[in-house]
């Protein structure tokens, strides 16, 4: 609900902003903010995988799990699998609600599918990060802190404002932020239409990050197991 609320708020508070020279040509801020809302929506739930793991570590359940004769990787991937399903459902719902309120996707239904897949890959990336933090700290509160961290990394990107209207070092950070690398091609699919280059960028970037964070979580788990 929160990303939808934010989109509704921004659509009503930034009506004067879309008239600024340099802002992409849009009928409403709603079209511009769709990828941001999608990314936000799925990202919030993504931290759950880490929070649940931290709770299991806190209450000792994880110790019993590790004592069981099973592979370690499924302990992490099982929780991520749940987050992926939830993210896919959320993605479809968010797009449907935006379309209902008048948003348009120039790239058509295929672009909508790319949006959902990119969002799911991003969830895996963030979930892996949360799990790594859970393994390192063993604290739910510390893992919960990834919620605002993810939130802010979205703000330090092109999610809510085009980077060409930013200035100084912040603009450089936003342009170097992987969230921007995901949001920008997705936004072009929505505002301008289908492009294979944009599809490739929208999917490859979150895929690479997912592989990296899940690998780091597995390494952290192995280190924890070997040190105890």
């Amino acid at each position: 609900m929160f990303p939808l609320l934010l989109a509704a708020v921004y659509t009503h508070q930034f009506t004067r902003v879309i008239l600024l020279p340099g802002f992409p040509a849009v009928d409403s801020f709603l079209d511009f903010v769709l990828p941001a809302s999608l990314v936000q929506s799925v990202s919030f739930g993504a931290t759950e995988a880490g929070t649940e793991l931290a709770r299991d570590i806190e209450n000792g359940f994880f110790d019993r799990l590790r004592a069981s004769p099973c592979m370690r990787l499924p302990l992490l991937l099982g929780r991520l699998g749940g987050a992926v399903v939830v993210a896919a459902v959320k993605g479809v719902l968010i797009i449907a609600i935006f379309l209902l309120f008048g948003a348009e996707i120039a790239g058509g239904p295929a672009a909508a599918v790319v949006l959902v897949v990119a969002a799911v890959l991003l969830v895996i990336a963030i979930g892996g990060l949360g799990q790594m933090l859970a393994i390192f700290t063993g604290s739910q509160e510390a893992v919960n802190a990834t919620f605002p961290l993810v939130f802010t990394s979205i703000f330090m990107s092109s999610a809510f404002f085009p980077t060409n209207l930013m200035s100084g070092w912040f603009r450089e950070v936003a342009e170097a932020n992987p969230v921007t690398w995901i949001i920008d091609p997705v936004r072009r699919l929505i505002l301008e239409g289908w492009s294979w280059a944009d599809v490739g960028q929208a999917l490859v970037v979150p895929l690479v990050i997912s592989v990296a964070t899940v690998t780091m979580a597995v390494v952290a788990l192995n280190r924890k197991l070997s040190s105890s």
Partner: protein
Amino acid sequence: MSAVTVDHSTDLRFAGMVASAICGRGMRRIVARPTLIMPVLLMPLIFVVSFTGAFGSLTRVEGYGTDNVFNWMAVYAAMQGAVFAGVGGASTTAEDIENGFFDRLLLTPGSRVPILVGTMAYSALRSTIPTTGVLLVSALGGLRLPGGPLALVTVYVATAGMASAFCLLGLAVVYRFRTMRSMILIQVCGFSLMFLSTGQVPIHFMNGWLHTVARVNPVTNVLRFARQGFLGDLTWSMTWPGLVALGAMVAVAGSLAAHQLRRLAA
């Protein structure tokens, strides 16, 4: 052997000791586990940087109210930090409930109010950390104080009040659901209230339902009170509505928390 009974319920000194012990325990917990305070400190700093960086062009829109985006966003980021500080205070209680410490705390004789007051005071104290951080970073970014040093006082009062209110609200939820996960409800509630206010743009920038909601949102009055010294001189007409809003939020959240605590202890 005769039992000696002491009526602690009327002993204000004892209540004060309990409250300060709870507050002190929270602060010691921060020292012992610095990772817990890092998000509370870092997040508002990232907020002020990201809001000023992302929305810096807002000052180019006519009627924004200031030509320095830090003067608008610093207070907003500090208030967000205060909400975190409040939720963090309540999270401490959630952890205590989950690990069984809270059951022992309930064995304390006398009124339960000091438990609430102590946790609230801990949150209010905790809020000074992000507020100070945000003001320092904003000063580096070019924050000005047209209202003089009193502008700083209003920010600290507002953030301590917001932290108290959200701590109490968080406690009401924690006492009801008894889990750390329930804190997400308060985080979302806090974010929503902040975003449905004049946090990022003046009220005359808004249209439709948002304008109406922001006008009745108590956070708008708190922001007006806290931000006045960053936009101009301090005035009583901007001050009292903010103080009333803070008082009302603390009173309502406190009543809810007290009610849920009574249920939990029963």
